[in-house]
């Protein structure tokens, strides 16, 4: 087990820079999730840590050791891949033990570790099958077992659940979290799925265009996104954005977007003395919108386009002055499309972004 650190790491492929000035310190036993859209550089970062991709500049350390230029086998890391990467001609047991046999671990010790992994991951029923006779979930568990028995300094997960169906994905997510906590090994986990990122990570690193957009605990990132990209990326359904400007009105502030005027009531609003007259984007999480009985201060009138009933929650798609907002509300009596509705806003949970996308500090509250 070990700390992991990246210092000013950069990766170029030809003339294209895919990772820029990447810094990250992962403490011993922590599970850090790298999350971002495709092409954001997250997998490249993981592959650089594994030694499967060279580092253009910067330093990578595992524990006290600099590993920047070491080959993969000398780094003491184990990786779980999206497509499992099991050797098709070997059984589950042989797949799990191969890395140990290559390292000349005594047979009794190999058996002990395979037993241990099989117990934790419940691999017994398919340990002697070849991968083609296993389901996707079983293969992924074998792949996890293979990583576990190596007892590496660091676990690397490269979108390990992407090929599984939704039900299995949820189940495997629990297993990975449980396994990582149980063995207490430092882990880096790459995913494009923000739900996985939120539920698994001790800490999130949100990436875009090869740069870190924000790092922090999942709820902190969710509650106080550093910029518009993070705000839009983290959260399902995504945050609603309205482009407009701030105007001063008596002693308060109003957000103006075409004909829509929203009086800003909460404490978390930009400082009127600094930001009035400024073009801003207002961000509202769908769960911070609710159906109001009547129009009032700071409400938004609109027309219902679609109501998606998910069970306990309903997603309302509401047309507001040519823009579409999504509200996540507790399911209630059904509403027909075209119905005029009024949305109330939780003013204490609004987000404001400057023209460059960065979050505006709100009355002394750091984003």
């Amino acid at each position, binding site marked *: 087990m070990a700390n992991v650190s990246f210092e000013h790491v950069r990766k170029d492929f030809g003339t294209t820079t895919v990772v820029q000035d990447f810094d990250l310190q992962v403490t011993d036993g922590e599970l850090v999730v790298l999350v971002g859209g495709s092409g954001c550089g997250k997998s490249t970062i993981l592959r650089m840590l594994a030694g499967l991709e060279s580092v253009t500049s910067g330093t990578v350390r595992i524990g006290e050791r600099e590993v920047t230029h070491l*080959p993969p086998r000398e780094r003491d890391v184990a990786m779980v*891949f999206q497509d499992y*990467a099991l*050797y098709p*001609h070997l059984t589950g047991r042989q797949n799990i033990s191969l890395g140990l046999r*290559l390292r000349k671990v005594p047979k009794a010790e190999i058996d002990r570790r395979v037993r241990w992994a099989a117990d934790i991951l419940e691999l017994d029923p398919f340990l002697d099958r070849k991968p083609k006779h296993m389901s996707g979930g079983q293969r992924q568990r074998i792949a996890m077992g293979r990583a576990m028995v190596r007892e590496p300094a660091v676990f690397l997960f490269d979108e390990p659940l992407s090929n599984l169906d939704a039900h299995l994905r949820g189940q495997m997510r629990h297993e990975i979290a449980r396994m990582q906590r149980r063995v207490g090994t430092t882990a880096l986990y790459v995913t494009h799925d923000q739900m996985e990122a939120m539920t698994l990570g001790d800490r999130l690193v949100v990436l875009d265009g090869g740069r870190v957009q924000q790092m922090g605990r999942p709820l902190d990132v969710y509650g106080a996104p550093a910029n518009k990209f993070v705000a839009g990326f983290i959260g399902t359904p995504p945050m609603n954005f309205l482009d407009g400007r701030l105007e001063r009105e008596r002693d308060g502030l109003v957000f103006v977007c075409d004909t829509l005027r929203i009086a800003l009531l909460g404490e978390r609003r930009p400082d009127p003395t600094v930001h009035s007259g400024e073009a801003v984007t207002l961000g509202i999480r769908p769960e911070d919108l609710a159906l109001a009985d009547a129009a009032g201060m700071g409400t938004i009138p609109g027309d219902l386009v679609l109501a998606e009933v998910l069970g306990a929650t309903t997603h309302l798609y509401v047309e507001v002055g040519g823009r579409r907002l999504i509200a996540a509300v507790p399911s209630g009596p059904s509403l027909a499309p075209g119905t005029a509705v009024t949305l109330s806003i939780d003013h204490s949970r609004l987000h404001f972004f400057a023209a460059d996308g960065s979050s505006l500090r709100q009355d002394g509250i750091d984003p």
Partner: protein
Amino acid sequence: MRRAAFYVVLAVAAATFLYPFLWMAATTFKSPAEVGGLSLLADQPTLDNYRLMWVRAPFGRALLNSMLVATSVTLSVLVFGSAAAYSLARLRFPGRSILNAVTVAVLLVPAQLTLIPMYTLIVQLGWVDSYAALIVPFAFNATAILILRQFFLQVPRSLIDSARLDGMGELRILFTVFWPLSKAPLAMVGIITFMGAWNEVLWPLLVVRDEQLMTLPQLLTVFSLGGGAGPRQLATKLAAAMVLVVPVVVAYTFLQRYFIESMASTGIKG
């Protein structure tokens, strides 16, 4: 009805190919009096033709030579060919695309064109009348590299990554991960190479004069040219030809499953 006609046509076509071979096989067991006939059965089967063949020329030795040469060439082509294919398909190094182009370009050069320069080279190396002259020029084969490279490109990258993380070096990855996954293309390359090396006549005729080093087809050619044209001689020559054909047929019978599988998956014509 159409189906029946179809099978009749297929059967006639198959017979057209099979009959000469079966006739040859039957004739090797016939006495001189029966050799001219078209029958596929010998009235008085005899092994005299094989005995005579064995006595008149060192066919036993030639059989061993052919085995040694064809096996060595096949193993070399598989080992070196797959190593080259692996490098060209899966390793990143400067000049890789040029090497790929050169490998394809080699296919465009007819073998006859390189025959004389190669012969000169063998003479200068002092390899005339040696196994090296029969093996080394064929130990590397561009077709094999291209067939294997095409297959190796389809192996998922994560499998190589995983093997590297498991602690394997590139050679070990090639022989313990890629080879077990590539049985079909390896079998196909193996059969094509073995048959080519086994049947080669022109090159051995150029570089080997010592009877003790001659390969089977070479000795058969020399034997046919100098053996006379009577019925007894014809049957003896056919017996020698049978000895030449049988190992290839046996090898093909065992490996045809992989061969056909590979043909179907790579879409390469034999």
